[in-house]
């Protein structure tokens, strides 16, 4: 076991190192724009998984759900990706002058951008980002740290505290995630606007976090850990994945339908860019992997409780989330690009992220042992 673990770890380190070479080469060879676009993609990917996981934890505390208590440690561990996101966010600020037209001085002379030039300016975006990071870290500290402490203290007082803290965190989450959506994605094309965009990113975020949780749960179960987590729990996870696949599609389609129908030049250009030429293929692929395949794969009752199918669908959902971010970010660079820079970024961040998560999976016990509802959660049957 340890032997294979070490070898897996070595392989991951090797892959990360290999990816790092490509990442390093991207900036001078492929140009800064391409570097930053890739960086942004993976920054947002890791950030949204971490943030979404924290959201899952907070939601569980808020509604007092019992069945998910045995699984809660997984999103708690995944939410530590936010710690990784902090340095990444600071690095990402370097993308502002490269990718974001709103930060350039000429934005002040553009009739549309002039009014919001201050909002889009690099100092203000940085301030907002730092504020968001601080708030998230508080969330991580309270929800995750408290839970880990509860393993020792067995004090149900944490549940009370978390339950009171959850609504506040959810409010923060709503606002900050919207800011992420507007500051880091929508602002790539600062003339475009869509009220639903925050909700769109939320749908993808939540889905990705659910998928990451499902993948981790199935993985740990395969290692013989998480004893007591049975098909009923997996079924519920699968049902949530199914429901939020539909929710994502609903939001994505609603936004598309309204812009398509309205056909107003000030907003429809965003879709024209993303549905023109080869991007149409990417968009169709997104529809297939983000909606059609998971939708039909998860409809049958058996599929939701089946570890193998759930695992496959969840991995597909994570890939779909990457594709979603790719489709959102990369059109500003022109036609779709998929070459060694993208692959080395993927290699680096996937292996790096896995290393991080792998380490996180060893923190504390596999289940929140101190939670008074753990037993009830383990007894949960459909």
């Amino acid at each position, binding site marked *: 076991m340890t032997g294979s673990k070490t070898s897996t770890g070595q392989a991951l380190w090797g892959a990360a190192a290999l990816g790092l070479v490509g990442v390093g080469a991207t900036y001078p060879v492929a140009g800064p724009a391409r570097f930053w676009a890739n960086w942004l993609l993976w920054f947002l990917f890791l950030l949204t998984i971490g943030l979404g996981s924290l959201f899952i934890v907070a939601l569980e505390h808020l509604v007092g759900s019992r069945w998910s208590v045995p699984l809660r440690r997984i999103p708690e561990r995944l939410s530590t990706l936010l710690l990784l996101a902090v340095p990444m966010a600071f690095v990402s600020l370097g993308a502002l002058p490269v990718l974001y037209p709103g930060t350039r001085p000429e934005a002040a002379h553009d009739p549309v951008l002039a009014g919001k030039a201050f909002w889009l300016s690099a100092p203000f975006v940085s301030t907002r980002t730092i504020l968001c990071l601080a708030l998230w870290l508080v969330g991580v500290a309270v929800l995750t740290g408290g839970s880990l402490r509860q393993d020792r203290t067995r004090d149900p007082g944490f549940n009370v505290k978390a339950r009171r803290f959850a609504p506040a965190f959810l409010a923060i989450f709503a606002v900050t995630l919207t800011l992420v959506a507007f500051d880091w994605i929508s602002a790539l094309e600062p003339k475009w606007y869509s009220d639903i965009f925050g909700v769109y990113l939320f749908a993808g975020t939540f889905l990705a976090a659910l998928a990451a949780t499902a993948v981790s749960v199935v993985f740990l179960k395969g290692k013989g850990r998480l004893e007591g987590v049975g098909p009923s729990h997996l079924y519920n996870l699968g049902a949530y994945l199914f429901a939020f696949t539909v929710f994502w599609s609903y939001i994505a389609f609603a936004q598309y*339908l309204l812009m398509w*129908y309205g056909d107003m030049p000030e907003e429809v250009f965003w879709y024209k860019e993303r549905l023109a030429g080869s991007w149409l293929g990417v968009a169709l692929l997104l529809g297939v992997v983000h909606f059609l395949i998971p939708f039909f794969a998860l409809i049958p009752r058996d599929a939701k409780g089946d570890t193998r199918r759930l695992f496959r669908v969840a991995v597909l959902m994570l890939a779909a989330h990457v594709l979603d971010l790719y489709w959102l970010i990369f059109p500003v660079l022109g036609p779709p690009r998929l070459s060694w820079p993208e692959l080395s970024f993927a290699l680096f961040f996937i292996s790096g992220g896995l290393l991080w998560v792998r380490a996180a999976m060893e923190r504390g016990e596999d289940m929140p042992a101190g939670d008074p509802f753990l037993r009830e959660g383990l007894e949960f049957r459909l």
Partner: protein
Amino acid sequence: MTEPKNRGMFGVVGLFESADALMAAIPKVREAGLGKVEAYTPYPVHGLDKALGQRRSPLGGMVMVMGVLGALTAFLFQWWISGIDYPIVTGGKAPTSWQAFVPIMFEVTVLFATFTAGLGMLFFLNKLPFFGHPVLHAQAIADITRDRFGLAIEAEGDGFDVEAAVRALEAAGARPIEVIPQPSFSGPMTARYLERSLLGIAIACAVSGYAMYWAVKLFPVLPPTSHMLVQPRLDPQKPSAFFKDGHGMQLPVPGTVARGYLPLGLASQEEAATLVNPLAVSEKVLEEGRQAYMNHCVVCHGPLANGVPTLTSAYGAKPANLQAKQFRDYPDGKIYWTIVMGKNAMPSYAADLSEEDRWAVIHYLRALQRAQNAKPGDLDGVKLEAGSGPGSEGKAP
């Protein structure tokens, strides 16, 4: 339903106090293997289907099939209607724009799926309505729908052993136990019943249709199709009590300038004489003039502009003969003025003919005049039909 040979007996049902007791009894009773074992409960009890060995409900598959059918139906229906049978472009969207079909596709999918789930469950799977089921006529049913849990051993084929079944239930702890006979009356779905109900439906349709006919006829408060035809409106050329002159059609207010028409800033016809026709003579212009002449002028002035007095007999009017020398010598401007301002009994045609058309008509009129008063050289090289034409008999030698 199975048709037991032993028509006298449906089965035996025993009641239990709690779901736990029922659950515990089921394996014992099933072991005895006396007949089909079925539970009757006031609410769905989890795990009973497994205990009773009943298969999982196939409803999910049915709903899925029908849902996909619904989506396809809705899509093809809309696509055929909007794209093929009745293609209209609205909002600049292509007739077959799939995006707009999605909402209805979704609704129809849900409609098909829910009706399959609800009605499919009732009619296909549960074979309801079924008022003649023996259990419904047992004493136990009142308890079953209230708070007791019934376990029945139902006869399957020949040789149902009632006593053994009662004993098995007793041993499992059921109390009381009731033997249920087949109901003595025949089910409602007999041929006579069907005939009667069909007749009833037919009569009801006839009566209600007739009643509606007379209701609409006798109480015309809301005649069903009076829309648009009957409404307070003024038809042109109809009298009206509203206007002082009694005409429905009114002249525009004095000084009204129609869109695209400029008032003519000339005081008299003489002043207009020097106006220049701005249009070049071309086939296109002459053709436009011909169209306008045929639409507006020909009824009075005749197809050859000779004012053949077709109107004299009908209305006592005598339009001008535009072939007269006087009009042949008229400058274009004077004719233009006449078209715009009218002359004598001729009204203004300013509202009917656009500026372009007026000048084109004048060009065409010149062609008509030329046709009737050709220059001698015009006939050079033209082969004449011998002895034709009205003037041939009077030709100069």
